[in-house]
Structures are given as structure tokens and as C-alpha cells.
């Protein structure tokens, strides 16, 4: 119990003093994961809509692939991206390795399948319900997809939250392509890994508590927005 008490105090101390290093790390975590989730939505929403409501050859194998990719091990993603982004790799000249951009890319690879697969599920369920209506209205595929996405928008926040959770929590990919460089690519999870390796378990756990609080805050905020929007708007 001693460790947990100390961890709580460590966390409170860092937060209450607005530790500048901590603020920078939290800021970068939010920036990287936020950008990764935004990028994932940009790709995952249309992909998911096509998989959920589209009819094209290869749809089922692709759906299986996307579902399986939800469980991609972050370390494997990190390693693959490292080999691509390394100076010796094909994308080396871009100079992206050990930058936040590389971390955004890595997390987007991890999050996109989650957003796409959950979107596909939500859209498929709605599409099942609306199919006859769409057919009698003679709607185009694009118009159908737009209607499904709009009507599924409250359910889709769940997909976004699941993606954000994955992005904020993963360490394996960002530590490889980011390098955990102080003040440049250090985020919450890599800082926790570093403090653990230093044997500073209470500090590591304290950082973990802050990450948990952050995650809770984001979830509560989005859920609150969803409830308010649902009440104000057109159900």
C-alpha cells in the first residue's frame, strides 16, 4: 500500500506545482494522440462506411483484415515504421524519424483499424435498418453513406474514444520511432517507461495516474458533449 500512497503524492505534487516538464510531456501526448486520432478518422470513417454499407469485391476479406489489424502489436508497428523512416530506409530522406510526426504516423497506423472497424459495424447495423427506405428513395451510394454517417454520429464517438484510448495508452510504437528524446519526443507513456527503468516506481505510477485522469477527462468530456448534442439536436 505504501507504493500507492507515495504514487498518489508524487502525482499530486507534479500536478499541483504545474511541473513544466510534465506540462510539456502532457501537451505533447495530447498533440500526438489527438493528431493521430484525427488522421485515423479522416481515413477510418470513409473506409469504415465503405466496408459497412458498400458492396464491392474484396469487401469481406478487407473487413477481416481491418478487424484483425485492431490487434496490431504496437512494437511491430513501431519497428516497421522505423525500418521505413530510418535514414537507411526508403522514406529516410524525409527526416521524420525521432520527430512527433513519426509518432503521429505510428499511432495513426494503430488507431485507423479501430476507427474503421467500429465505423463499419455501426454503419452496417444502421444500413440494415435503412436499406429498404434508401431503396424506395432511390438514393445513390454516396448519399446513403452520408446519411448513415450523420445518423450514426453519436455512436461514432465511441469509435473515436476507443481510438483515442489506444493512442494515449500505447508505448511500444512511439518509443521506437520517437526515441523518447527529452523535450522533443517524450510523451506520458515513454516517460513512464523511462522512470520504471530508473527504478523510480512511485514516480512512474504517479505519471500513470495522471495519464489515467487525462483519459477519464477526455472520455467524460466527449460523453458529456454527446449527451448535450443529442438533447439539443435532432435525436
Amino acid at each position, binding site marked *: 500500500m505504501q507504493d500507492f500512497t507515495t504514487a498518489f503524492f508524487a502525482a499530486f505534487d507534479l500536478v499541483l506545482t504545474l511541473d513544466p516538464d510534465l506540462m510539456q510531456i502532457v501537451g505533447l501526448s495530447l498533440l500526438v494522440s489527438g493528431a493521430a486520432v484525427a488522421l485515423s478518422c479522416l481515413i477510418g470513417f470513409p473506409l469504415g462506411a465503405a466496408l459497412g454499407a458498400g458492396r464491392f469485391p474484396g469487401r469481406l476479406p478487407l473487413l477481416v483484415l481491418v478487424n484483425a489489424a485492431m490487434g496490431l502489436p504496437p512494437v511491430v508497428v513501431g519497428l516497421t515504421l522505423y525500418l521505413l523512416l530510418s*535514414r537507411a530506409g526508403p522514406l529516410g530522406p524525409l527526416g521524420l524519424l525521432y520527430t512527433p510526426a513519426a509518432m503521429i504516423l505510428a499511432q495513426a497506423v494503430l488507431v485507423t483499424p479501430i476507427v474503421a472497424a467500429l465505423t463499419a459495424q455501426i454503419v452496417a447495423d444502421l444500413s440494415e435498418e435503412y436499406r429498404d427506405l434508401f431503396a424506395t428513395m432511390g438514393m445513390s451510394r454516396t448519399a446513403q453513406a452520408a446519411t448513415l454517417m450523420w445518423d450514426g454520429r453519436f455512436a461514432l464517438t465511441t469509435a473515436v474514444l476507443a481510438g483515442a484510448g489506444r493512442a494515449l495508452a500505447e508505448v511500444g510504437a512511439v518509443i521506437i520511432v520517437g526515441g523518447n528524446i527529452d523535450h522533443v519526443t517524450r510523451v506520458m507513456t515513454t516517460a513512464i517507461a523511462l522512470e520504471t527503468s530508473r527504478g523510480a516506481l512511485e514516480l512512474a505510477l504517479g505519471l500513470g495516474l495522471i495519464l489515467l485522469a487525462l483519459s477519464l477527462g477526455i472520455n467524460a468530456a466527449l460523453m458529456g458533449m454527446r449527451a448535450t448534442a443529442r438533447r439539443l439536436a435532432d435525436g
Partner: protein
Amino acid sequence: MIRLASLFVLLTLPAVAQDHILIQSTTSTQNSGLYDHLLPVFEAETGIETRVVAVGTGQAIRNATNCDGDVLLVHAHAAEDAFVAAGYGLPRRDVMYNDFILIGPDVILADSPADALTLLARAQGPFLSRGDDSGTHRRETELWRAAGIDPTTSSGTWYRETGSGMGATLNITAAMDAYTLTDRATWLTFANSADLIIAYEGHADLNNQYGVIAVSPDHCPSVNATGARIFVDWITGPQGQATIAAYRMNGAPLFTPNATE
């Protein structure tokens, strides 16, 4: 020499000020807090921003081979020489040393590290190995060879390979009340030492030499060759050496500078 270097720095300041160097490093120098002490001094004197990627020595060398770094700072002499010989790096320079120690729940009375390991093998450890091709792991492998024992035949029983960094391995060692090999700096700054103590120390075979290498611009045209040269010159020069010597924990130095001209 110092004046000349300072002049050079002043002249190149505008060109490199917005630039940075990337150091591929072993973990012990970061985990021990040396960089937090050393690098701000370097940055203040030269205006060059430093970025450290701290990984195992094996991975650091591999990353530098891929041109993903400007400077290599590790502790595996033979591998460093091979790196330079292959044309990946400019000539290697000694920077500093400390020593490896065996830590565990009890003191081991032995004449040499090889003796100590023989006793450990007989007592069936348990012994935790990094098993990650790091500098510490390489040294551990050499010590077992000197003792004439192949511990990997007992892998999974009393000999356990964590495949993790030094910190993670130390955490497991503390939890299992086992023995492991680590460097003194990491040990002195490790906060979760639990009931572990230094089981064996103080032998020439446990010397832990750190070297620095600028990645060759011929092999990697993308490197910041100027910044790398300035860093290597600085850390092996009087300023850097004095700064290393000044880093102490509870009065004891963690690293002893030993660069030669």
C-alpha cells in the same frame, strides 16, 4: 586549444545554432542522470541542442549504422572498433569508465568475477541476464566464457534472460531476490534496490569503458558532421572531462573521465 575551439564555436554558432545533434546512447548514461548534468553545460557553451536516444548498446550501434544518429556513445569496445573498421564511424575516443558489479541478496566471496559466476552456477543462482545484446550483456557473456560455463544451457531454470533494459532487469532482480550484472552508475541511481546489495566488485575484468564515435559523413551524408565533431571534441576535452568528474552521487563519482589526446 580551448581558445581555438571556443573561437571555432563562435564562428559557426549562427550556422549550427538552430541545428541539433542526435546521440545514440546506451541506457546507463541516461538512467544514471549523467546527461541531465552534462548536456546543459555543453548546450550552454556551444549553443548546439542535443537529443538523446537511449537504447541498448546493440540497438544504438544498429541505429547509428542506419545513419539514424550523429554520435554514438556506448560501452562495448570490440563492437565499437568493428563499427569504425566497417567505415561507419570516425576514429573512436575513450570518454570515461566506471565498473560493473554483481548485485544480489548476499555477498559472494571470490577471487575473480569468473570465480563468482562459477559459485553462482553451482548454487543455481538464480541469475538474471539482460539477454539483449547490450554492452552489459556482452560483458556478462565474456565473463561466463572466462569461467568456462555456458549458462544458456540452463536458460529458463536458474539462468533467466529478461530480454529487457537494465532498469527493467533490475526491477525483476529485486522482485525475485536474484543476482545480476550491472554498471555502478545505474546501480547507484537506481531507486528500487529493495534488499539487494553489491555481491561482488573491484576487479580489472569488471572495468567498464565508455567510448564516443562520430558517425562518418562519408557513410552517412545526412549527419550533422560539424556538430558531431564539436561534441566529440568537447566531451573528450578539458571542459567535458571536468564536467563528468564533477557528477557525483552521495559524494562518490559515478564515472571517471579518462580521455586521452
